[in-house]
Structure formats: C-alpha cells, structure tokens
C-alpha cells in the first residue's frame, strides 16, 4: 500500500488499472481529459485510445464489453450528449465485463457551454451512478463500480466534477486485479437490440433497478455520520466535502450512489433529525427523492441554495446568513486577464481577416472560440461541437427563402471537424450550400492540452497512425471542387482567398494549415522588433490580440520573450515598422506556403 497525492483524474486512471480494466477510450474534454492521459501509463495492461468523438469512443467500449472485457469510457458532461444514443442502448445490453462510464461534469462552467447535471442521464437510462467526493473515492468507485456492474449486469456511471477531477488529495494505491477470461460467444438474444428482444430486456432493466435500489441501502459508501443536533445534511460529491467544513456537529447522510437512491438508509437518517439541508451540485436529484420519501419533513434544498454554479463553502455560508461575501476590495475595478490566442497562434491571421471583412462567422468549440473575443471579434455563434458548419447552412437557407444573403463563413478546428464536422459538411454538399467552410488545421487537439487525433499521425499509446489529409478528404473524397489549402501565417493570401470564396456562389472549403505554435520548434526564428521611427501609432497590430504585442509610449512594442517571430504582425503593419530582429529571422517567404492555392481551380 502506497499513499500519494493524486488528482481525481489520475485516481480514476489508477482505479481502472487496479480494477483489471483492459480497454479504455475517450474523447478529450475538460475536465475529463487527463483520465485517459493517465491510463496510458498502464498501456501494457490496458488498450487505451482516443475516439474521434464521444459516440465512437462509447461504442468501441461497448464492443469490448461484448467480449467480457472490463472497460472504461470517459468524457466531459456535454460529451455524453454526443454519446447518448449508445448510452441508452448500453443499459439494455448490460455489461458482461464491468463497464464504467465516466461523466466529468462542470458545475460553474469553468470550461464549458452549459452546466448540465448528468445524474439525470443515469436516471433516464436506468443505470446506477456513483459520485466521488475526493481522489480516494474516485479510485475506489471505479473498482466498486466494476463490481456493481458485473454483479447486476449494468453499465455504471461515475459522475465526477471539475473540483473532483482537478483537485489533488491523498490516495492509497493497491495491486491490480487479474482481469477475467474473455469468452465471446455468439448470442443473438444477448447482443442484438431488435424490438422483440428489447421488449424483454426492458423488463429485465426495471427488475435490475429494484435490486440495485436494495443494494444501495447496504452499499458501504452510502453512510451516516452521527451528529449531536437535530439537523441533518444530505450530501454528495464535492458539496459533501464543502459541507463538512461548515456543519461540524450535525448529522450527515453521505451518498455515494444518488441513483438508485438508498431509501431505507435515508429513512433511518431522517428519523434522527428535524430539518434536512441537501447539498448537491446542480439539480435537485437527491432532494426530489427525499421529498417523495418524507413529504412532511422540513427539507432545505434548491428553493434555498442556488441551482446554478458551484456549491462552495462560501455559497453555503452566505445563503445561511453566516458570511458576508461583499468583498473588501472590489476586484472588478482592476483589469481582467481574459484568455487569448497564444503568441504565434496560426488562427490569428484568419480571424483578423474575417474581422476586417465583416464576415458573419458561425463558430465552433476549441482554442479558436477565443477568436470571438475582443479585439478579434470574429465569431458570431457557438452552439456545440460541429455546429459551425450546420448552423451556417440553416442561416443561409432561411435568409435565402426571404430573398436575403449574408456574407458567411463557418470556422472549425481539425479535431472538431473530425469529431462532428464531416457529417455537417455532407449536409452542405447535399443541400447545395453556397457557404465557405474554414477548417483551422493546427494538427492537434489543442484546447484540451494537445491530444492526438486522426490528423496527427500518432495514437494515444504513441504508435504511428496514418495521417488523414483534410484537403484530400474534402476535395478528392467528398468532391468539393473549390477546396484550398493555405498557410495560417499568410495574411494577404488568406485575405485574397477569403474575398474570392465569400463571393463565390458555390460551396468552398479553405483548410488553413499550420501547426499549433506551442508545438512548433523554431530554431531559426528571431523575434520581431518595432522600428519606433516608422510606427505611426495606428494600433492595427494591437488589434491582432497577440499577447506579445503591447504598447510603449503609445507606439507598438514587442515583448521578445513571448514573440515567436510568426510574422503575422509584420504583414499586417501598413508602415513597414515591424521586422525580424536579425537576418536569420525566418520570414514567411522561407516557409513553404503549404502549396498555396494547390487544390483550387
């Protein structure tokens, strides 16, 4: 037994190892990404991989369960929306080997477009859900989850949250269990969800849930902490830990399995107290069960605590009237530090051009979503993964019906394009869209911290993989005639190409290709310098939003330690005031212009 500090995600990975899991898949998404990045440490024992999206990752895991293997699939909360279809099927199909579905929710929306509570999915799909409150539980619940999964022939959801996944606490690690023997046998009744079979399975699923409900009452991780008062706290997840800081003398019912809810255990707890506070993040899941079981009990839940955001110690205390959160110093009075595209980001030149050409841009999810913020202001919409392309089609057709037309482009990254952009592009071809699709190909899944994808040539386990060439895919594969590839640093080239394609009454695709600036090694590059005699304070370079460009005495100034020498500002400056610091400085002319206009006609 070894005790070490692990993040919740590291602990989940460790749990996968110790539980004898042999297959793990995921699509990266904050706050879930590090789970598979750590499972890969055990790649000798566990096949681990990135799926192209959450649905493929989920289905691949299900295929593995058919063989009797123990499996884990991980995603962020909104990722489970993408994988919802196989999720519901998996409930009926059961799990021959244990099956853990990790959903990392994001209360407070640190890095997400919403804060949905995925325990609702567990209830809707009729599978049990476990909610760890620290790293030890994160590890233990993978192991327990596998046991529950195999015992009841059901997938088990592990609902983590940002604060569990991204906090560190001590974990006692153990040995790996020997994985079960695999034993695939063809069994039509077991693995085919035809209506005639599914009808029988639904009955089994309902029976199963009753049994798991009984189990929930005896599950050792659902437990009562005795108190000295007549006040009880019904709590789960990180809200339990936050509540423990406050309610020192009161009773607790710590719930590890909010669904199926431990009804009998709850009754015992409720008998001991007169008033119950429910501490759970986001939706009133446990609260609603509690209200049904003890309708006459005084229950303080989401009518009192906020439905939105995190259930922190401060939030609880301030709602209880025990702490005044009015800040002594008003931090809104000082400048914010918003995230921005990095120095040398290969997306900047594209957004700069979209901004000055006043294009309506349907956007997508990735680093490049930051292109919507000032000073680039070059994105109008964000819905979900892949929606840049499809939303553009909807706007275009609706406007066309009214006899109107917008100057429109869709902007999507390489990983997001693979994830769910390709199907949208098929819609554009099929429905005769005249739009322009810009695929920002930086050859990595950058936002979540540089994960490989079908365009990078490497797998999660470090093996070589074929590189999917996006230009070839759209031009030769899908037959889009007006397909182009251009260098992300070629400001004027992008400008010209955009101008022409936005005018064209035909669908076109522009692949803007240049590897992420954080990955690119730049041996010969020298930073850019500003000639103050030539700078006329037009501030055009500052509108790039490059963190390396600032101003000194009103004139542009480049922080050389940050500057990558990408040359975008050199090209943007209308007064020739910017240049590389020395002759060795690589200029845009020295790079291959990625076969400028190669694919176009």
């Amino acid at each position: 037994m070894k005790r070490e500090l692990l993040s919740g995600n590291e602990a989940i990975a460790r749990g996968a190892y110790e539980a004898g899991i042999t297959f793990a898949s995921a699509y990266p998404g904050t706050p879930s990404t590090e789970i598979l990045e750590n499972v890969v440490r055990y790649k000798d024992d566990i096949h681990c991989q990135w799926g192209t999206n959450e649905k493929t990752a989920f289905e691949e895991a299900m295929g593995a369960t058919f063989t009797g293997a123990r499996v884990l699939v991980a995603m962020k909360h909104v990722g489970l929306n993408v994988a919802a279809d196989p999720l519901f099927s998996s409930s009926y199909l059961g799990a021959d080997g244990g099956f853990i579905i990790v959903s990392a929710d994001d209360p407070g929306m640190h890095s997400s477009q919403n804060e949905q509570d995925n325990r609702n999915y567990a209830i809707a799909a009729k599978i049990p859900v476990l909610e760890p409150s620290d790293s030890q539980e994160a590890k233990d619940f993978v192991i327990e989850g596998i046991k529950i999964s195999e015992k009841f022939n059901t997938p088990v959801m592990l609902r983590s949250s940002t604060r569990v996944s991204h906090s560190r606490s001590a974990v006692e690690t153990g040995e790996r269990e020997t994985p079960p023997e695999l034993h695939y046998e063809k069994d039509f009744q077991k693995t085919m969800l035809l209506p005639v079979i599914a009808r029988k399975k639904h009955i089994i699923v309902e029976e199963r849930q009753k049994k798991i409900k009984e189990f929930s009452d005896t599950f050792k991780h659902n437990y009562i902490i005795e108190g000295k008062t007549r006040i009880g706290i019904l709590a789960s997840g990180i809200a339990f830990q936050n509540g423990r800081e406050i309610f020192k003398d009161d009773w607790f019912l710590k719930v590890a399995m909010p669904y199926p809810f431990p009804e009998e255990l709850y009754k015992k707890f409720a008998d001991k107290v007169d008033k119950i506070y429910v501490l759970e993040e986001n939706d009133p899941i446990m609260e609603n069960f509690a209200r049904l079981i003890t309708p006459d009990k005084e229950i303080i839940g989401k009518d009192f605590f906020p439905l939105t955001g995190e259930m922190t110690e401060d939030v609880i205390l301030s709602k209880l009237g025990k702490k005044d959160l009015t800040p002594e110093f008003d931090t809104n009075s000082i400048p914010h530090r918003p995230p921005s595209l990095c120095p040398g980001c290969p997306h900047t030149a594209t957004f700069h051009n979209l901004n000055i050409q006043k294009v309506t841009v349907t956007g997508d999810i990735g680093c490049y979503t930051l292109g919507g913020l000032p000073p680039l202001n070059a994105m109008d919409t964000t819905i979900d993964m892949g929606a840049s392309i499809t939303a553009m089609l909807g706007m275009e057709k609706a406007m066309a019906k009214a006899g109107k037309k917008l100057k429109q482009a869709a902007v999507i990254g390489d990983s997001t394009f693979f994830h769910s952009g390709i199907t949208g592009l098929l819609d554009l071809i099929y429905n005769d869209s005249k739009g322009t699709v810009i695929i920002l190909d930086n050859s990595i899944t950058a936002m979540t911290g540089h994960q490989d994808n079908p365009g990078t040539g490497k797998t999660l386990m470090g093996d070589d993989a074929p590189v999917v060439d996006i230009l070839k895919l759209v031009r030769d594969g899908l037959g889009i005639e007006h397909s182009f590839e251009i260098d992300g640093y070629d400001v004027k080239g992008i400008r010209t190409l955009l101008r022409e394609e936005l005018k064209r009454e035909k669908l076109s695709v522009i692949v803007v290709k240049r590897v992420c600036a954080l990955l690119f090694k730049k041996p010969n590059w020298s930073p850019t310098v500003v000639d103050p005699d030539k700078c006329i304070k037009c501030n055009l370079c500052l509108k790039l939003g490059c963190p390396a460009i600032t101003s000194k005495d009103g004139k542009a100034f480049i922080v050389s330690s940050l500057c990558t020498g990408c040359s975008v500002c050199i090209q943007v400056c209308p007064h020739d005031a910017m240049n590389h610091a020395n002759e060795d400085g690589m200029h845009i002319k020295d790079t291959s212009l990625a076969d400028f206009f190669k694919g176009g006609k």
Partner: protein
Amino acid sequence: MKTIIIAGVGGQGVLTASDLLSDVLLDAGYNVKKSEVHGMSQRGGDVIATIKFGEEVFSPLPAIKNADYILAFEKLEGLRNINFLKNDGAMIVNDFVWEPLPVASGTVEYPDDIEDNLKKYSSDLILIPATDIATELGNVRTTNVLLVGVLASKMDIDKEIWINVVKRKVPPKSIDLNLSAFEKGYSFRA
C-alpha cells in the same frame, strides 16, 4: 487547518509550484488537498491553485478571508486574490508586471496603486523582485521555486523537507539552479 493560495498567469509555473508545495506538506505529515483551475486559463489567463493542509481537510476550495498565505507570481494577480487573505494572513508578491491583454491593447490602464492596496489589505506583505533575481541567477523559469523559498522561510517546516522535494520535483539537470533559487528566496529579507 491552513490555506495557501498561489496565483499567477498561465505559463508562470503556478501549478508546478503548487505540486511541489503539496508534496512538502504531505512529507511533513499533514493531510493535504489541492484544487486548481484548468482549461481556458492555459491560454494566458489568470491561474490560481489552493492548497489546504492540517490534521483533517475536507474541502479543497478557497474561501473568502480564509487564506493564511497568498503567494502571487504577479502583482495584479496578488491584488485580484486579496479578498481571500485572512486579516492576519501573509502576502508574498513577486514585484513583477505582466500586462493583461486589455492593458496591452490600450483599452484599460494597468493600475498604479497596486502596492498601496496590497499594503492596505495585508498587514504582513513581502514584495520581492523574484523574476529579476531568477533572471540574474541564470533562468527566469526558476522564479516559481524562488518564491516557494520565500514562503518556506515563513512556515514552520523543516528546511530539509523542502530541499528534498525540490530535488525530486525539478528536472535533474536544473536541480542546482533551482536549489540556489530556493536559497535566494529562503534567505530573502526585504
């Protein structure tokens, strides 16, 4: 139970420093929990890590007026988190300016009264030009370890534990440089 907050800008080594500190506290026999902010903050935004330690720790999250120590890697980030500091808490601030984008692009001014405000809200303030000292030592990237050294000098934990963890956590070829940065911080007197 005590709380330490480390705040700075993405890329300054805040998370590395917080890992180092967590290991020290664990080696010193405490229970430790740490929380941090990921995601968008990697793109030049502000970063904060919270470390809580003691006999028993439940929540890993920061709370207003609850921090015993705040270690700020940049002046503005120190001020941004000042409300977390206890009335008798200690504030260690790197005397270093990293202009956020709205300042760099001329939309707003970088405040010129940061020091006044830091002094107003913290009775125990250390301002140290850590970035300058680390640069003189030979590598600006040791700024974080230098600042951890200042914190170490204010805490009641055996110096050997700190040194062992620094040796363990930093890349082998930069151990000496980091140890001298730690010493500079440890022996710093304003």
